[in-house]
């Protein structure tokens, strides 16, 4: 995405005038949005994360569709995390129909999700986020000077894609997921062929943790409310209870009792609060709330990288993302090694009138789906709350903190820091639109 920087009349004498930074289209984030920052003298007056990607209206056009369709329709919301949409849709609709998918089919779903985590996290760490810390304008520029490093990242990403192809039929918008399981089970030979690449990917992911842990991080400590799923025995992917760092612990069916979304004038995405407070979802939240559920190898990688069980510096999210990539490789290998094929590729999910809720953990955070269907299986009502919309208020808070802490730096550097503060969250604007451009104005 092109990155146009607007006029900055105050740059020559930053303390004497309004400083304004315009980023017409934020680079290296998914979708279209903008950021407006206005500084008058030494005071930060205004920060708005403006999402101008047009509203997507998915919830509206799911009404009247057959209950088997939302997994494929909602997968189209995002090219980066289609599996998240498919999984949340399947679990919610299965809940409405009173069906639980467990055993080997549940494990295969988890394996598919691991593929998406590896693919999405590797893309963000290497191509979108690392350039910020190393002073490159893009992953392509990074690749010119650090060829072997970027090759490693691409190799890692590809293993994620390969997992998605084996389980999902293809890497973007998989076509093999259905209510109750899969259309076709992977062949044992296909699964076996993933083992060697995943072993290498796990080593590559460990090397990634070491690499990003060595970056120079701005000294920022942010006290944010974290929200994610939590499961008694596993790092959350497909299921769990909705928990927060403020003590929330409820079933996902109570999501809407605690999470409120409201319109803000400057954005086509909704702003969310949990029990009245802005909050964040995603790797930092999951990590803080589920550190003990990470595999021993992932925990060790985190400790060696200097991370405690809670990370509060949003710039270190890149390290957490790398640790989660280690986990995803580790977990995928665990699933492969324990796999016993199920008798059938899916379990029947006959329709019944009812309402179902589900949250799963997309790479960017908790993704909520709720469906109401009738006895004939028609979707009467749908609600989707994507992760980026939930974190949007906290992203603005992070930008405020960065600006307040760096009022004296030249506007172009400040602009870069602001953009970085946004990219720390790996926002997916396409998903949130129901979501970016940076403007810093100094007076």
């Amino acid at each position: 995405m092109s990155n146009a920087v607007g006029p900055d009349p105050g740059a020559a004498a930053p303390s004497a005038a309004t400083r304004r930074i315009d980023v017409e289209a934020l680079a290296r984030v998914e979708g279209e949005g903008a950021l407006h920052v206005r500084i008058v003298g030494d005071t930060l007056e205004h920060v708005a994360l403006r999402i101008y990607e047009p509203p997507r209206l998915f919830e509206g056009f799911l009404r009247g569709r057959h209950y088997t369709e939302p997994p494929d329709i909602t997968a189209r919301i995002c090219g980066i995390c289609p599996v998240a949409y498919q999984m949340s849709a399947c679990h919610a609709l299965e809940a409405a129909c009173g069906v639980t998918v467990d055993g080997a089919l549940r494990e295969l779903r988890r394996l598919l999700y691991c593929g998406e985590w590896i693919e999405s996290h590797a893309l963000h760490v290497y191509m979108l986020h690392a350039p910020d810390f190393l002073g490159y304008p893009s992953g392509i520029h990074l690749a010119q000077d650090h060829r072997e490093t970027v090759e490693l990242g691409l190799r890692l990403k590809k293993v994620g894609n390969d997992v998605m192809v084996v389980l999902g039929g293809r890497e973007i918008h998989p076509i093999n997921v259905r209510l109750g399981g899969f259309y076709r089970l992977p062949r044992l030979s296909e699964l076996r062929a993933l083992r060697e690449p995943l072993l290498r990917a796990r080593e590559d992911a460990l090397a990634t943790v070491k690499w990003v842990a060595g970056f120079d991080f701005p000294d920022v400590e942010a006290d944010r409310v974290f929200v994610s799923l939590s499961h008694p025995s596993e790092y959350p992917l497909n299921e769990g209870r909705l928990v927060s760092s403020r003590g929330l612990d409820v079933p996902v069916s109570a999501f809407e009792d605690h999470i409120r979304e409201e319109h803000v004038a400057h954005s086509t995405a909704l702003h969310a609060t949990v029990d009245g407070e802005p909050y964040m979802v995603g790797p930092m939240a999951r990590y803080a709330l589920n550190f003990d559920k990470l595999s021993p190898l992932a925990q060790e990688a985190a400790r060696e990288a200097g991370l405690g069980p809670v990370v509060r510096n949003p710039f270190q999210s890149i390290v957490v993302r790398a640790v989660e990539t280690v986990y995803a490789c580790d977990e995928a290998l665990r699933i492969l090694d324990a796999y016993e094929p199920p008798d059938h590729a899916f379990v029947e999910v006959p329709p019944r009138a009812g309402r179902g809720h589900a949250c799963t953990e997309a790479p960017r955070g908790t993704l909520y789906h709720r469906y109401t269907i009738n006895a004939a299986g028609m979707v009467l009502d749908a609600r989707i709350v994507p992760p980026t919309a939930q974190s949007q208020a906290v992203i603005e808070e992070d930008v405020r903190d960065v600006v307040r802490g760096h009022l004296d730096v030249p506007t172009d550097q400040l602009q870069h820091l602001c953009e970085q503060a946004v990219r720390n969250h790996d926002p997916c604007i396409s998903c949130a639109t129901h979501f970016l451009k940076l403007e810093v104005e100094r007076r």
Partner: protein
Amino acid sequence: MTTLVVGVGNDDRGDDGLGPLAARLLARALERERPPVPAVPPVPAPAAAVPPPGVAVVAWTGDPMGLLDVWSGYERLVLIDAVVSGAAPGTCRRYGPDAPFARAPGASTHGLGLASALALARALGRVPEAIEVWGIEAAQFEAGAPVTPEVARAVLALVEQLETELAG
């Protein structure tokens, strides 16, 4: 010389589907000229009609970054993609490897578009020696719309031209 032809695009977004469409038509045309292996001992086919070995055609509708692995190892790469230059819809132009493709904001919903994938491949030294890009001017990218007639005509003309060149 080994050649790879890749038609890039999204079948479900109007004229963005012209790349995959061209690739499929070209693959079929080349296949026609190269009869499938018969069960009985073959009569030698006319030499001219058999496309040289080492020509592969791919319709690519996935993540453009994945192309780095697809085109690795080929000596010549022929890319077919939709372009927006302001020319009349269906205008077909051949661009060199250094064409200044700008990625318009919002042109792709993915991390990297084709131009970025090419730039990345170049940075990594993973591009074929010879690259040509055929760009056909698109009229629309409507969800679910078919390829516009004048664009389809340009696709057919390009397929015919490439078929003659590659089969010869």
